[in-house]
């Protein structure tokens, strides 16, 4: 594998790779790819302290409104804590590919919930099934407390169906818009009636609220329940196609390639095994085609986690990491709607591009990109921002120096930037003073090319 291919694989399966790590990697592609899967076999759930909920019963919340209010407020803080725990996990993952897949699924089975217990359980379900059996995955999602609340599955009862989950199940989770009729939605909503959960977030099937009558779904009559509906949906090749298309756009290229997606569909439709599908993608020659390298716009999370991969950084205030996510337009656990973040060009507008270009210098160097700029700007910068930096951070440059020990400053761009650099910008980079590796790193992170992966 060439350096470029290795970096490409690691940018898509993870968040980049540092040069010191590259030297110890096997040389052949099959082995590198297999290691990715071996390293992600384990499953490490996120587990924050939620002991404040122990021993509390639903009836207590009704009896003591003050307690309910306190629990609610605590919950808001705990969601933020979960957000931080997740971002830190992404920065220091044990199972790299599993975490990358978890991030993808969180923007596929989109869910937003306020109870931190249900949020954590949901997030761990995504992580657990991330590389597993898609069929079991969809069924597990349909029974998650967070999802039952988010898409009103709880309110879906016999004779009073609520269609919200049934609709999104087909439109967003499995088939795509227009691949079903309104009648299919109404019938399948009936099949999911009686789904509920207890206070701790365990699934409960309420027999009295389930509609046991026959349903006509995708031309099949039967006394279907929710799992039956999911089996019928997945028997449609369209489902394998829909997921393959999504995986292709996410992992390969935002511009779909029908031939490659069709090939993926064949692989996925056989057994709906996510790991097999991903192995097929990473082993395919076309995955490493030049047209696929450096063509994706990094999501805000890709961008922030990737930066911390190159230069590890700690934030003095936990909230700052959250603020950065907000400014860049992607706060984990807080998607805009059930369709999730659109991604690609939609990440970038006049605001987000400027924040992205400026952030490396703010986080890593008190807001200065060019070390040798005239003092005038430096003075003005401080005058305008009144106080010091917007974020208090401690960048670990010693770790960076270790990562890039064997890399000459002039070679830095081959590691920091994926894909081609604009010719004019390349000319500009050539004339920059390269006496400091750290300074050049920040300068590279402050050009538009750094937004690509």
């Amino acid at each position, binding site marked *: 594998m060439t350096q470029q291919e290795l970096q490409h694989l690691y940018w898509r399966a993870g968040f980049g790779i540092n040069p010191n790590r590259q030297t110890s990697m096997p040389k052949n592609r099959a082995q590198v790819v297999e290691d990715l899967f071996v390293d992600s076999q384990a499953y490490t759930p996120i587990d924050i302290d939620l002991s404040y909920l122990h021993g509390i019963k639903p009836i207590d919340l009704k009896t003591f409104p003050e307690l309910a209010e306190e629990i609610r407020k605590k919950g808001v803080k705990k969601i933020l804590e979960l957000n931080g725990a997740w971002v830190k996990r992404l920065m220091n993952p044990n199972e790299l590919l599993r975490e990358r897949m978890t991030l993808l699924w969180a923007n596929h089975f989109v869910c937003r919930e306020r109870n931190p217990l249900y949020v954590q359980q949901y997030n761990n379900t995504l992580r657990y099934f991330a590389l597993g059996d898609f069929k079991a995955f969809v069924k597990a999602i349909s029974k998650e407390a967070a999802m039952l609340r988010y898409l009103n599955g709880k309110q879906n009862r016999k004779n009073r169906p609520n269609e*919200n989950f049934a609709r999104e199940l087909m439109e967003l989770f499995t088939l795509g818009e227009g691949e079903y009729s309104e009648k299919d939605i109404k019938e399948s909503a009936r099949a999911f009636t009686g789904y509920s959960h207890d206070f701790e977030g365990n699934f409960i099937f309420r027999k009295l609220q389930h509609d046991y009558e026959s349903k006509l779904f995708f031309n099949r009559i039967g006394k279907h329940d929710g799992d039956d509906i999911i089996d019928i949906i997945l028997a449609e090749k369209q489902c394998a196609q829909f997921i393959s298309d999504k995986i292709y756009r996410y992992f390969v290229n935002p511009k779909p390639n029908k031939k490659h997606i069709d090939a993926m569909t064949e692989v996925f439709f056989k057994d709906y095994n996510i790991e097999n599908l991903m192995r097929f993608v990473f082993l395919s020659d076309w995955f490493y085609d030049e047209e696929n390298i450096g063509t994706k716009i990094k999501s805000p999370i890709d961008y922030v986690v990737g930066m911390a991969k190159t230069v590890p950084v700690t934030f003095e205030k936990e909230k700052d990491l959250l603020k950065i996510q907000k400014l860049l337009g992607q706060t984990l656990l807080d998607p805009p709607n059930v369709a999730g973040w659109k991604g690609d060009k939609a990440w970038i507008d006049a605001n987000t591009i*400027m924040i992205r270009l400026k952030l490396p210098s703010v986080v890593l160097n008190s807001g200065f*990109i060019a070390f040798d700029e005239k003092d005038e700007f430096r003075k003005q910068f401080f005058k305008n921002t009144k106080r010091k930096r917007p974020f208090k951070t401690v960048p670990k440059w010693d770790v960076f120096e270790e990562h890039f020990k064997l890399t000459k400053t002039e070679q830095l761009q081959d590691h920091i930037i994926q894909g081609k650099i604009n010719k004019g910008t390349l000319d500009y980079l050539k004339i920059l003073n390269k006496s400091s590796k750290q300074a050049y790193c920040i300068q590279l992170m402050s050009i538009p090319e750094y937004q690509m992966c």
Partner: protein
Amino acid sequence: MYSAHVNTRISNVLIMDRRKFIKNSALASSLFFVPNFVKTFETVASERLGYKRLVIVQLAGGNDGLNTIIPHNNDLYYNARPRLAISKDLIKLTDDLGFHPSLSPLRPLFDNGELSIINNVGYPNPVRSHFRSMDIWQTASGSDEYLQSGWIGRYLDQYGKQPYNAMEMDEQLSLAMKGEHLNGIATNDYKVLYNTAKDPYFKNVINHYNDAHLSEHNLGYLYQTMIEAKSSANYIFENTKVKPSHKIYPQNKFAKQLKNVAQFINSGLDTKVFYTSLSGFDTHANQINKQARLLTHYSESVSAFVQDLKQNDTFKDTLILTFSEFGRRVKQNAANGTDHGSANNVFVIGKNLKTAGFYNKLASLSDLDANGDLKYSIDFRSVYATILSQWMEVSAEGIIPNQQKLLDFI
């Protein structure tokens, strides 16, 4: 092969123009990259833009129109919503229709003839998915077509020159604001944007950049957005008067958006469209309190905004359009909420409305569609087309697909 060749030639034209722009930008930062063929429109555009401004308020999630404008004299309404129907404290406006109690701050506007309520606005074959229906409203497409640009974005393509000609009061830009060639700008905090754009390193990168092959690619898009951001940030910062408004706004995020809009309008910024949003209307369960709280935010904020504009004599040049991606089902659900519906009401607020009060009657509650939703009688695209031609004084052609019947509210 042939068409690829033509494309190259076109992009060469763009490159030359962009180079020229980049050189000039050091001298005149407000200059903006515009292809030559667009430039020919400019003289026409500047004459036509005028001072008329449009403020859009998006109620995201699907506001329940039937509990907003209430058919208080209709048994069908009460029967369909045994636990949701509102009778207490409702504000009767006509023999048939009245306001939700939370809309009381809008009562003076209604009485002054400064509010027009258009009932049953929708489109054929309604889609009940939030994001799809929102896309339809934002792109002005039909339910069977997908457009990649928004209606305000296409207005910018034809009649705008700078991203700041259309501003969204948010951190992120909606599809509505994205054109084929030009995007609006999102300004949650214009001062931050300005401070960021000022860095000399960026100036150097922009000056060196040359666009040999990249204009269609993601990377070219990044550079283009960077250049636009810099010039817009300068303009907004330099032209916004920091004098705070005297008018007291309620304390909520939506009010803050409108307060910023008022500041921009009263500073005389060359911004034709402002986009604001209030979300949380997806009331599948326990609707009563949620909707009441949201409608209070809406009505109190809008009322403060209108008074602020009136004090600065800018209300006469401002039109406020409020919409939601769909209404909700006539029949309530089991969770004391309502499911996604279709046709809904649209509010138009401004001075000198041609038809104030109720523009049309509420659709029948007995003649519903197969899902049990209101049937639409006015296409939302004809509302847009009317605003474009009667208020913004531009042709809707090329902005709103298909010719639309013009309405008579302005």
